[in-house]
């Protein structure tokens, strides 16, 4: 069977800024990383692979050419193969267009074989929508289980534990083919190994690049054209509240604060 793990390269959050004049994201200066939750989704795929004989793990991403770095990271953790979906025509995709593109690539990969599991992160740290996983599953017509804090595969039955409401966990199961999205609690991702890194850099054999034509994409459904949501504005949130800043040495501030709290009857 195949386990397909969808991964995404994201900007390292804290450094992202908006150009105050143009209102666009300043991307150049931003280092890109593998979406943190996607490491857990790769780990889940690898753990299942190790627990049985017949598994091949394939990492897939849609993104610009530099997203190949995310795939190399997956390969050096131990994925068997990687696919980069890259085409200028994919640019500007929202989650609907992204999930369409990923799912037709997965269809091509599976070639009518139904014996597969897809793992995703519960959300990416940039958009934080958590839409792509369930939407890939919807496009493929398979069940999705979101937000796993524990997941295992027994034969072709996927068993997942996830938070339901405060103080409650739900155990839920389904049969393959299926898609699961994972949270941080699901496992502890391994570090890349030396063997893995050597294997990863054996790129020619392991990493394929597919474009819109390779996957026979409907041009109406990809990129900007296939996106139903449009970003009309981006800005840095403004401070909203009138406030006071206490200054001085920690000791001085502590005294001012304590006296203020006493005045307001908090202490």
């Amino acid at each position: 069977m195949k386990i397909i793990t969808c991964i995404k390269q994201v900007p390292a959050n804290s450094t992202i800024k908006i150009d105050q004049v143009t209102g666009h994201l300043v991307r150049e200066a931003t280092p890109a990383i593998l979406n943190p939750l996607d490491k857990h989704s790769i780990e889940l795929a690898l753990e299942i692979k190790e627990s049985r004989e017949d598994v091949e793990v394939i990492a897939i991403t849609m993104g610009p050419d530099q997203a190949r770095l995310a795939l190399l990271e997956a390969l050096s953790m131990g994925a068997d193969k990687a696919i980069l979906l890259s085409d200028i025509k994919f640019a500007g995709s929202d989650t609907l267009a992204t999930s369409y593109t990923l799912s037709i690539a997965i269809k091509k990969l599976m070639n009518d074989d139904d014996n597969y599991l897809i793992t995703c992160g519960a959300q990416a740290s940039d958009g934080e929508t958590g839409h792509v996983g369930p939407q890939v599953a919807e496009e493929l017509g398979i069940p999705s289980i979101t937000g796993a804090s524990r997941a295992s595969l027994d034969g072709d039955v996927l068993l997942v534990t996830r938070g339901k409401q405060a103080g409650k966990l739900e155990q839920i199961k389904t049969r393959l083919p299926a898609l699961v999205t994972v949270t941080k609690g699901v496992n502890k991702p391994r570090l890349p190994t030396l063997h893995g890194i050597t294997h990863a850099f054996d790129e020619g054999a392991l990493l394929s690049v597919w474009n819109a034509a390779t996957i026979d994409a409907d041009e109406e459904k990809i990129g900007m054209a296939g996106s139903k949501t449009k970003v009309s504005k981006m800005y840095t949130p403004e401070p909203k509240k009138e406030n006071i800043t206490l200054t001085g040495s920690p000791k001085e501030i502590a005294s001012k604060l304590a006296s203020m709290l006493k005045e307001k009857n908090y202490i």
Partner: protein
Amino acid sequence: MQPNAKLEDYSGVWVVVERSESEIDPVVLELLGKAWDLAKKRNTSVTAVILGKHADQESKKLGIHGADNILGVHCPDVQDYEQEFYTRVLTELVHERKPEIILIGATPQGRDYAPRLSKRLNTGLTADCTGLDIEETTGNLLQECPTYGGNIMAIIQTVSSRPQMATVARGVFKPKIRTKASKVKVEKITYCFDATRERASTVDIIEQDGETRDVRDAEILVAGGRGMESSENFGLLEELAREIGGKVAGTRSACDLGWIEKNCQVGQTGHVVKPRLYIACGISGAIQHTIGMQDSEHIIAINKDPEARIFSIADTCIVADVLEFIPAFINAIKRFRNS
């Protein structure tokens, strides 16, 4: 959107009802208040859609909070939430009745089916909105949502398809109460759901350990984030809390690191709290956290980064190293209490 339908064919604002335990989830009432505003601007009405058999029982409450109509869909074969049931029923209802806007709570349940519903309807969905309004010139829904960890806000529109779908977390909007009594129309339909395709089904629900402490009704909360640096340093917060008669809470990062119990987490995926005093120690102020505490009466923030977002919602700002400041603060309180 259906291939032969036009944008103008769609009207009305829907809120999908979720029930937790045996009552309506608070996010539903918050969404109804917002739906009511939006419907006024669009000159249309608000429909609360409830899957399950509780339409009559809940009609009064939903009506008071902003619903004009209630649509109850009862299906004898389905007792609880199920992804495929929700997706299928809502798809059919939308095709038949064509609402212009659908609002869904960003709860674990909402997050589970909303993306699939938007895909099946072939329309846009915006996640975790913190503001919703109508653009005057176009009548489009303006969906404000934080992105890049809350560092940047974006306004998103669904321009070329309908319905316009958005999810919203608990605590973002305030519930409203209708003062003028108006008549709520309740319509009920029965739906036969034959599960032909493979589904995900619940095996078991497990109750986690009982609450060891409850941060929800504390008058004073001392909350710590990753800036506290270690679980030992959380001991400082315990000491401060004891000194001023409060309880200790934490951000998700602090809970994930095991510095404090998960049930003390404040924010979108934790508790929404409203104490008289909230002391934020080493917390950056990500929107997912502030949603859960921004309505506190007085907020004191201590952070060594003068640019930290927490300062934009705090009443009293202190730029300092928490580890240095808290011990000094505890001493000062002892002095002032005795003076």
